[in-house]
C-alpha cells in the first residue's frame, strides 16, 4: 500500500521539476486509474478474477493496446467503447501510472 503514495510523490516530483506543481496532488491519471480498478482489480492487482490485472503492465505495450482498442485494430468486447472516451494523452498517462504499480 505504500506504492501509491511513493509513486504519486515520484510522479509529482518529476512533474514539479518542469512545472513547480504543488506536491502530491491527486492527478487525473491516478484518479482515472482508480476507476479502471473496478474491473481490472484493486490497485491493478490480480485477485483471482477473469479480467486482466494491470499493475506493472509494460507502459509501451499498454499504450499500443489501448490505442488499438480505440481505433478498432484490436478486437474487444467492451474496451473499444471505453477507450473512445479517452484522448491519446490520457491513454499515455494511464499507461505510465499502471506501469509503476507493483503487481
Amino acid at each position, binding site marked *: *500500500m505504500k506504492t501509491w503514495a511513493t509513486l504519486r510523490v515520484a510522479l509529482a516530483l518529476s512533474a514539479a521539476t518542469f512545472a513547480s506543481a504543488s506536491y502530491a496532488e491527486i492527478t487525473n491519471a491516478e484518479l482515472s486509474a482508480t476507476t479502471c480498478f473496478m474491473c481490472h482489480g484493486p490497485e491493478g492487482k490480480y485477485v483471482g478474477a477473469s479480467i486482466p490485472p494491470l499493475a506493472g503492465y509494460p507502459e509501451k505495450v499498454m499504450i499500443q493496446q489501448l490505442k488499438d482498442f480505440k481505433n478498432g485494430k484490436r478486437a474487444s468486447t467492451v474496451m473499444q467503447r471505453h477507450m473512445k472516451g479517452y484522448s491519446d494523452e490520457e491513454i499515455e498517462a494511464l499507461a505510465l501510472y499502471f506501469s509503476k504499480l507493483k503487481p
Partner: protein
Amino acid sequence: MKLMNRRNLIKAMIATGTVGSMTSALSGCSLPVDEDAKPKVIVVGGGFGGATCAKYLKRFDDKLDVTLIEPKESYMTCPGSNWYLAGLVEKEYITHDYRKLQDKHGVAVIHDKVTDINARKQTVTLSDGSELSYDRLVVSPGIDFRFDAIEGYSADVIEQIPHAYQAGPQTDILYRQIREMKQGGTFIMSAPANPFRCPPGPYERVSMIADYFKKHNPTAKIIVLDAKSKFSKQGLFMEGWQELYGSMIEWFGEHDGGAVTKVEADSKTVHCDLDTFTADVLNIIPPQQAGKIAFDAGLVDESGWCPVNQETFESMIHRGIHVIGDAAIAGKMPKSGHSAASQAKMCAAAIVSQMHNWAMPRPKNVNTCYSLVGADYGISVAAVYHMQDGKIVGIEGAGGVSPHGATLQFRKMEATYANGWYKNITADIWDT
C-alpha cells in the same frame, strides 16, 4: 499496513535532498493539515458508494479520521443477487463485510443507524442518541421505495410479495418462492418508471429466473408488466430471451397498458390498463426515491433525489455534506453500483483536494454494467463521462451496448467478464 503519512514524506524528501525546485512550491502552498488536527469525515451508508468513499478517503489521505456508519455487519450486494436467484452463485459470494476497511485501511466502522443529521451543527446522531461531529459528511443512502405509488402495495405486504430490490432477506424470500412455485405456474414482475436503481436489473432478474425455470419448471410463464415503454439493453435482452428461452418471457410496456396501478396482495392479482393478471409468484419493484435519511436531512429536492455539484458531489442544499450513489442526481450517470463507486472516488478526491488546497482533479468518470441473460450469456453497457456546463454528460462516440447478433462465444466472454467485474469491484471496495 500503514501508509506513509504526508508529513513524513515531506521530511524524507527534504532529508534526502530530492526536493530541489519543490521547496519554493511547498512554502507557497497550503501544507497538509496541522500535526495534531485530524479532519473528521463521516460516511453514512456502507454500500458501493459509501464503502468505496471511506476507503478512498484514506487512500488519498491516510491522516484523515474517517468513520463509516452502516447498520449491517454483512452486506449482500444487489449486483449478483439475480445470479443467486438463478442458483448460479452461493449467497456467500455476494455477501461482504467491513473487516478489511477497518483493520487494513484504518476506517472506523460503526454498525448503527443514523437517526438524524444536523447540517448546521455538523453532527450526526446514532440510534442510541450519541452524537458524532464531522468536518465533512458523505451520505450514500441508496434508495427508498415510494409505497404510495401502487395501490395495495405497501411495506406491510413485502413478505408475501417481495420487491427484492434491496438485497438481503427480501432476496431470500423471492429465492424461496421461485423454488416453491407450482409446475407451469406464472411469475409476474412489475418494473418501475425511471429513474430507478440499476436500469437493467429487472430484466436481468427475469432472465435469471427463466434460466432457473428452464431447468426446473420448463412450462412456467414469466410476464413483465412495465411502467416504461422501453428499457436498458432492451434489444439485447429480447434477442437473448428468444435465443435461450423461446416464448417463456412476455413483456408489456407502458404503451401496451402494462403499468401496474393496483395490487391485491392476498390473491397476488395485479391490475393495469392492459388486463388483470393473477400470479403464482409476484415481484413488485416499486418506483423509488432517495434513501430516507436524505429526506430527513433535507438533502432532497422536489424530484425525490438529491441535487449536488456534479464535480464534487457536494449538496446544493447543505454545504459540507456530499451525496453520492443512487440518491444523487448525477447528470447522465445511471443509478448503478459501478456509478456509485466511481462517484465515490471522485468525491473522495474532491474532499481531500479541497482540504489540502490542491488543484481539483478533473478526470473522466465511468460506468460499466454487465448483465447475465443466461449463465454463459452476458451483455454490457458502458459509458465514459465528462463535465460539461456543470453537468456529467456522456462523451459522444464512446460507450454503448454490446453488439447485436454477436456470436455465442462473444456472449460467453462477456458472461465471464461479468463475473470478473463482480469479483474485482467487490475486492476494490470490501474484500482487499
